[in-house]
């Protein structure tokens, strides 16, 4: 390790880790861009994007322990689920709705993550229902004396649902190991944050009796620091933390939305210019950890991964109609 003064070292991240974070952000970005392309090309029915939110999603995941923690993502969390161990091939199987999709065997829309092997908890479409689930998983961990921490993410729109308030309040009372992460991207489909809330989401933590922080989503190292500290507090029995990540949704809500009906291109461009990926690349390059050659190599490597995943998923089978009516209830006696 060099003795140069670097932010990531101060946070306890090795050079290899910060480079891995950067590569993961790029992978999520490239997967996401391909998803949009596939929808526009008519190969898939639907895609929902997390572009510009990936840097903080990756940072969140890197601050957690994938062996012990529970992950409750929301539908834009490609950066999170890829960092936790889901593969591009698996995401492709999901977006093509194929049987081998580990999230749902092609039953759910893409972005509805869930994989027990990776401790990614299954989610649905009515937003914010995952917040009380994260609290329940944390309650189970506390009752069993396990060192698990639940991290749950959701959008700014979700912060207005009763389940957000009820979940936070419950976790505060019981001092449970949960990290609530609001990815405030400024919009709930077309409704801007100014019409969603008259206050700051992070400030609501005061009412629940635990700390709340607002973080710049274009500063993934700062996101990493805040989540890591929240995790340390959770493990130490000091209870939950609410984190509001300030970001911006540069894409339309989904491939079914025309965002220029409610906002301007100038506004979008203004935020796109603040994208954290090129900034992190400059940071790594300045430290001698990255180069144009490595960037080219990464691009080739990730394109191959995405091409391969797409080709596999396109050819893969759908679940048979007979099997698509299975698993309403446990099939084996006493099975879980």
């Amino acid at each position: 390790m060099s003795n140069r003064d670097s932010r990531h070292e101060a946070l306890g991240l090795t050079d290899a880790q910060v480079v891995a974070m950067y590569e993961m952000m790029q992978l999520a970005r490239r997967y996401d861009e391909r998803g949009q392309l596939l929808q526009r090309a008519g190969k898939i029915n639907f895609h929902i994007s997390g572009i510009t939110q990936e840097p903080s999603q990756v940072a969140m995941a890197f601050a957690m322990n994938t062996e012990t923690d529970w992950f409750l993502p929301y539908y834009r969390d490609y950066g999170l689920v890829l960092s936790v161990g889901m593969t591009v091939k698996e995401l492709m199987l999901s977006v093509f709705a194929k049987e081998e999709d580990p999230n749902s065997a092609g039953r759910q829309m893409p972005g509805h993550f869930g994989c027990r092997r990776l401790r990614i908890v299954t989610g649905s479409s009515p937003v914010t229902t995952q917040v009380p689930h994260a609290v329940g998983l944390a309650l189970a961990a506390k009752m069993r004396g396990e060192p698990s921490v639940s991290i749950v993410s959701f959008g700014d729109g979700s912060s207005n649902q009763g389940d957000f308030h009820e979940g936070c309040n419950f976790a505060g009372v019981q001092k449970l190991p949960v990290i609530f992460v609001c990815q405030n991207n400024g919009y709930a489909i077309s409704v801007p944050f100014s019409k969603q809330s008259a206050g700051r989401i992070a400030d609501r933590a005061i009412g629940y009796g635990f700390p709340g922080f607002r973080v710049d989503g274009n500063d993934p190292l700062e996101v990493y620091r805040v989540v890591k500290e929240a995790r340390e507090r959770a493990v130490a029995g000091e209870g939950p933390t609410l984190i509001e990540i300030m970001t911006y949704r540069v894409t339309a809500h989904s491939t079914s939305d025309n965002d220029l009906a409610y906002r301007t291109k100038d506004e979008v461009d203004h935020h796109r210019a603040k994208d954290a990926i090129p900034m992190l690349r400059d940071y790594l390059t300045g430290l001698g950890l990255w180069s144009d050659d490595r960037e080219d190599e990464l691009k080739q490597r990730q394109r191959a991964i995405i091409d391969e995943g797409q080709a596999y998923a396109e050819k893969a089978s759908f679940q048979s109609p007979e099997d698509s009516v299975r698993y309403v209830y446990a099939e084996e006696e006493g099975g879980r």
Partner: protein
Amino acid sequence: MPIIEYIDAIRLAMKEEMERDPEVFVLGEDVGLKGGVFGTTKGLQQQFGESRALDTPLAESAIAGVAIGAAMAGMKPIAEMQYSDFMFPATNQIISEAAKIRYRSNNDWSCPVVIRAPIGGGVFGGLYHSQCPESVFFGTPGLKIVAPATAYDAKGLLKAAIRDPDPVLFFENKKCYRLVSDEVPDEDYIVPIGQSRVMREGSDLTVIGYSLPLHFAMQAAEELAREEGVEAHIIDLRTLQPLDRDGILAAAAKTGKVIIVHEDNKTGGVGAEVAAMIAEELLYELDAPIRRVCGPDVPAMPINPPGEKHFLLNKEKLKAAMLEMARY
């Protein structure tokens, strides 16, 4: 065999399951030190500690949602809704989440949660302490729904629900808590989910129902046998979902004259499905049109005594309907 009250059967089922399995715990409003507003959880916190008889904030969606999360971690939570009238804020968690977790994850995840809720009127509870919400949840694939009428079934079905790998709604009748007592063995047993039970053998007409009104039907049947020589065949569905198709069809075929009874209102109730099932399978074996004797289609019962009495079923109402059916 000891005779115990329905409420004690429920309490004992929880106590024994908590002794048997450390993953079983109960959560809800007032379930801790107070032991529940009706007393169903009395003594559990003293025996098992605060965390396993957990008093929660007054927030039904969180009670259900937190229980669902714990169940996904492999725990066996019993979430108590203080009154079934208050479980509607938790409906999204129950219908969108608990019911669909196994299916939507292609069997990767499961949700072995039990949600207990007292149903029914006759306690001067007015509109919001008296409802029977079964039909709101009935017909949601992924949920199991039970509604015992006796202490024996309450204990055995609750134990079965706790051990079940899928979400079970346990609708206990609050009027039955202290009104109903019957023989309950000391030793461990379960009543399998999905099986109806013949309460009374008869050959003149069939009564199919669940929960409290069955006791009125039983009383009416005894009087009709004595006074009119009419013998009613009565079955208790016990489980509303999945319905015991074979049991229902056998009971209907036995007499060819069917009355379906429940306190939940008539339109869209469980009885509609039971009637449809019979019509689909054995219409030509019926000797009379199927009749449903249920709560009226008003939002919920009033608190004033004549209004409540008018809403509720009782022995007289059932006796009249049963005699009419027998003579059809």
